[in-house]
């Protein structure tokens, strides 16, 4: 492959399979898709024969850790990981230090993203001041800031106070915002360590019951319907949650939901028995890994559209926060660089989703829910040239040390995953080529 400069002059992507379907050349000029057709010519050429062309992926749920925990991740390192994972935009969660609960902090994060330039960083604003769950943060100021915040979330913590949640849902209607709820009833999950079930019972780890998630989701759906607002449910993890969301959608309520790649693949029995030993906190995550039945229900819900979005919940942690006893370890997994391969394994190779379906759930829908302009648009003439080229034919052993993320807490070490992101284009400019940062 010839070196490609960040060129406005015209790059042609040769022979890619558009959304896994027919093969065509894509001509990029001035940051937009200028032409799609056969035998197109440009100043520079990217050979994409055998690769799938997808719209640039959009993550609705990323922890970039900056400001505050730059030992775990920075906007620079996290967006490198995002680009290598095929993403052209990520939503950066608000649980930084200081918390992203003011216009100042969200603008800072937004600017750091612009400077890094690997992908667009769209900050998420906190719902409550300091994520404390007591008073609303200045949601309007964040919405009006340069960062144009539309998604608000206390993620990591649940807005458990019903009145506060109602007010937040109502208030964000003024600027077409959405509250993304981390559904976790705090009293039912005091000291909770893993999914409450057969494994937690045997391992003597405090259980994290499914009902603690489902009860909040049910309440929030009813609240959203009552005040006529939009609700987005973060990282749905149980079959029961799926049922409630399916019911809410059947009523015509404006409820959307996301699932993480790891909840589509991994189960709670890994805590007891895995290649990396029992009680290995690499599997400690919030919400916790659930059962086989839950995984199956989540896959079906993603396939039938009950769950709208795959969101990574990329949660980097330094090694010393994971090389501990289970109870002392931090919760979370990195996921930006493995999301597409995991979705291929869990959804595409099982026949549940085709590549057009993947594009909907990893690009169009998240951009739509986040009201993110210039992303999540179809590969069509006139669209911004946000394009991901993916080789679905390879299968590789996961090597945590190969990742661009500052942290190594991937749960897939020792596993083989399919697929490889070969190139990512952000508004026509390659951020990744040949599987490496451009």
């Amino acid at each position, binding site marked *: 492959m010839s070196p490609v400069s960040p060129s406005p002059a015209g790059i042609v992507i040769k022979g890619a399979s558009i959304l896994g379907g027919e093969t065509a050349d894509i001509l990029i000029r001035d940051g937009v898709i200028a032409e799609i057709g056969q035998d197109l010519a440009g100043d520079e050429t990217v050979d994409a024969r055998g690769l799938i062309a997808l719209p640039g992926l959009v993550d609705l749920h990323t922890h970039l850790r900056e400001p505050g925990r730059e030992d775990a991740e920075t906007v620079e390192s996290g967006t490198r990981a995002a680009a290598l994972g095929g993403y052209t935009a990520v939503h950066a969660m608000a649980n930084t230090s200081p918390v992203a609960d003011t216009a100042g902090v969200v603008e800072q994060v937004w600017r750091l993203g612009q400077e890094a330039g690997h992908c667009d960083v769209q900050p998420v604003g906190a719902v409550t001041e300091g994520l404390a769950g007591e008073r609303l943060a200045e949601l309007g100021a964040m919405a009006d800031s340069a960062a144009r915040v539309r998604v608000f979330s206390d993620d990591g913590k649940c807005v458990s106070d019903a009145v506060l949640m109602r007010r937040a849902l109502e208030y964000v209607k003024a600027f077409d915002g959405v509250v993304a709820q981390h559904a976790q009833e705090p009293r039912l999950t005091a000291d909770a360590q893993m999914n409450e079930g057969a494994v937690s019972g*045997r391992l*003597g780890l405090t259980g994290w019951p499914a009902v603690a998630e489902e009860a909040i989701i049910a309440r929030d759906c009813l609240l959203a319907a009552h005040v006529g607002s939009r609700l987005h449910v973060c990282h749905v993890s149980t079959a029961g949650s799926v049922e409630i969301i399916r019911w809410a959608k059947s009523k015509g309520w404006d409820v959307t939901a996301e699932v993480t790649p790891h909840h589509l693949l991994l189960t709670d029995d890994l805590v007891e028995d895995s290649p990396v030993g029992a009680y290995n906190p690499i599997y400690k995550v919030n919400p916790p890994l659930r059962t086989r039945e839950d995984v199956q229900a989540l896959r079906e819900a993603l396939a039938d559209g009950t769950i709208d979005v795959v969101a990574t919940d990329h949660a980097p942690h330094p090694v010393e926060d994971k*090389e*501990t*006893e*289970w109870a*002392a370890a931090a919760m979370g997994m990195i996921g930006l660089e493995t999301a597409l391969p995991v979705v291929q394994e869990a959804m595409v190779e099982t026949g549940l989703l085709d590549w057009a379906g993947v594009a909907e759930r990893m690009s169009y829908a998240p951009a739509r829910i986040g009201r993110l302009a210039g992303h999540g648009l179809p590969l069509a003439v006139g669209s911004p040239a946000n394009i991901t080229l993916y080789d679905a034919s390879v299968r590789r052993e996961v090597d945590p040390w190969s990742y661009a993320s500052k942290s190594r807490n991937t749960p897939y070490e020792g596993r083989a995953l399919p697929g490889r992101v070969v190139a990512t284009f952000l508004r026509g400019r390659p951020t990744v080529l040949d599987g490496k940062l451009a």
Partner: protein
Amino acid sequence: MKRHLISAADLSRDDALLILDTAEELAKISDRSIKKLPTLRGRTVVNLFFEDSTRTRISFEAAAKRLSADVINFSAKGSSVSKGESLKDTALTLEAMGADGVVIRHSASGAPYRLAGWVRGSVVNAGDGTHEHPTQALLDAYTMRRRLGSLEGRRVTIVGDVLHSRVARSNVLLLSTLGAEVTLVAPPTLLPVSVASWPCEVSYDLDTVLPKSDVVMMLRVQRERMNAAFFPTEREYSRRYGLDRERFARLKDDAVVMHPGPMNRGMEIAAEVADSPRSTIVEQVANGVTTRMAVLYLLLGGADLGGNQ
């Protein structure tokens, strides 16, 4: 035998019987004037206690010393080990000292598994959080076998806070391996939601289970449970689940009463029941030393098995 003893599930029936038979032989040592064997001369056993338990530590210490091992007691309680990083640092220190065996007591479930990943020596779980306490189960089984002969088909009833009990978990696993029929009795709040998947029966009613029991094991009720709405009052708990004089009188004549200690006399067990000849509570302490000698001998007395777990 596996290289470590962390869960009672690590033991096959043959392993468990080998430990009990070995303990039976070693019990004779305590009747001799020289209560010491040269077997573990030159081997180092570290007692790594992140949680206070003088009784268990002394028991392991006596066991190791009677086998002539060098014993290092490391009490990490009170130091700032709330954050787990220091478990790994401690493990690396032990590695540097060349510990052949590490006996670990820790408040976090699963800590011995983590430790086993960081040290070369054998790890013996002396109680981890609310997970397991396999040597307690072994000494309980040993005590029962001495009183009752074989455990095959014997009915063992375990009463109390099963949810938070490492003793109950290890006992259910070991006793079912040895062919006993275990019944757990507790208020539903103190049973794991998944208890139906355990190899035992479950009942909420002590009085229907007692007359059929060959062994009744009373678990300690921790003070902090009493304030966390697991049951309404101490009095109600004691009335429904305590082993008082009346219930004791309805036991079979040869039934045995056990308690892993320390007891709340008057709460889960009446003082006169605890002190009766059918109670094995003092015997359990003595049997702890010989059972732990057997475990240490079988794990450390032979060739170094290397890293294979």
